[in-house]
């Protein structure tokens, strides 16, 4: 299968990456090449094989529900693009 320009635009939107009309042809063709490579997997029979998520098959640890981190808000917000009174500012989302 091959991605259409419409498919590429949808993937870009889902990825929250702006892709211009001028770029879409090149991006689409590179994605199609990569998907062609990935397609090799379909030739292999994997019936009954358990998917492997972690090399040691360990499950996630639980910890005590305790406060372990100090409040470092100012240090963490020093690298933020726009803050005010300890809040991260973004464009208005609710009219």
């Amino acid at each position, binding site marked *: 299968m091959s991605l259409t320009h419409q498919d590429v635009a949808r993937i870009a939107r889902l990825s929250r*990456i*702006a*892709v211009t009309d001028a770029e879409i042809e090149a*991006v689409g063709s590179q994605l199609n090449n990569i998907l062609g490579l990935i397609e090799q*997997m379909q030739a*292999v029979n994997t019936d009954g094989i358990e998917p492997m998520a972690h090399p040691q098959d*360990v499950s996630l640890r639980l910890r005590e529900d305790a406060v372990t981190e100090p409040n470092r808000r100012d240090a963490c917000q020093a690298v*933020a693009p726009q803050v005010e009174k300890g809040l*991260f500012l973004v464009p208005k989302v609710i009219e």
Partner: protein
Amino acid sequence: MINATLKQLSQQLTAGQVSAVELATAYLDRIDALNPALNAFITVDRDKTLAEALAADARRAAGQAGLLTGVPIAHKDIFCQQGWKTSCGSKMLDNFISPYSAHVIEQCQAAGLVTLGRANMDEFAMGSSNENSFYGAVKNPWDVNAIPGGSSGGSAAAVAARLAPVATATDTGGSIRQPASHCGVTGIKPTYGVVSRFGMVAYASSLDQGGVMAQTAEDCALMLNVMAGFDERDSTSLERTCEDYTRDLAQPLAGLRVGLPREYFADGLAGDVGRIIDNAVAELKKLGAEVVEVSLPNTQLSIPAYYVIAPAEASANLSRFDGVRYGHRADEYKDLVEMYEKSRAEGFGSEVKRRIMVGTYVLSHGYYDAYYIKAQKIRRLIANDFAAAFAGCDVILGPVAPTAAFNLGEKSGDPVQMYLSDIYTLSVNLAGLPAMSVPAGFADNGRPVGLQIIGNYFGEAKMLNVAHQFQQVTDWHSKAPAL
């Protein structure tokens, strides 16, 4: 001094023959002289480095020095380090001064290692040539027309050019072993879960693993003693008792069973690289190793499986770069979605965008089973292949890459060609095994070639033993480029 190993530097510091400040100054001067041509470092900060060196000397004077206190180190720009720009090779983080330090950095600082600077890398560790860095490609110190390998190309080039005696690095699909091979240095990627990922900017979390590069296997063992260990802040860090990774270095290799996977010596392996690996195996035989043929039949499938799993995890991990809490934000936008889309379009380079989009696609509704679950099943098949092979051998040997370093620009226009060159390294990450690259010779074009040593789970000490014994009877690791 510039060619000294960590072990030698440690001895000189202990004997008072050199101070941490003198050492740091010597390396900083060399970086000033050579980095403009090599581009191995993104950030160098003489004042910060000398402050660390002074503190190391004070610690030694107070009788509180450890083995590596005062030894200089370069850190891959992927490890968050408080007060230092941590760019991960990306415009997205060009303005990011980390407010905290990674576990690996904390461990190095506790040991008294002195930060020389922040090593260049492919953007977000995505790449096999270091051409994907926002800060420009790193040049191979052996030949400035060659790629240094990636993604830890700055780390490898720095150690090869003797701009640093040791450098931290990370390996998601070969990013320690392949640049180590291409630059003629020794590199180790430990078993998944041995080195904490806390504060290491995430690419593909189920594959990412921190490690180190140096001139010798012995130096790598000393560094692993510093870097490894349980950290509760990494959810996949393994709770194991601490090991001394130097403990088996001196063991003789008589009776060692060395597995050669026939798939690693098939079509696609360059003749000169194959001969170098054959010679290395012959050296080990002289030391008493027995050679057995093994098979890793699903090797070819590691490429599609990796290029599903890694982009899928990357698309999730890199969703945090939204221009809200840190990182690049576009100047102009009309609403929140456009702010995200423009900030990410401007902040990410083309390979990172490609992988995010591939990952988004394979995880999208209706495709998850066909791609991601399928890839994870193949991952199991690959791990099973290794388990079967290790039933008959102690370590597996082979090439790291099909050829010596290719030319800058040779593959940068064709992502799939670049991906195919990862054939001998990806399986190890998918299975979560430890592996090394050890200098083993020079290709017909004069560029270095590494021998890959793959160990069983937690087989780091065994691999380091094999590498160290190999380095006792060869001198490839002590060769340095003329600069």
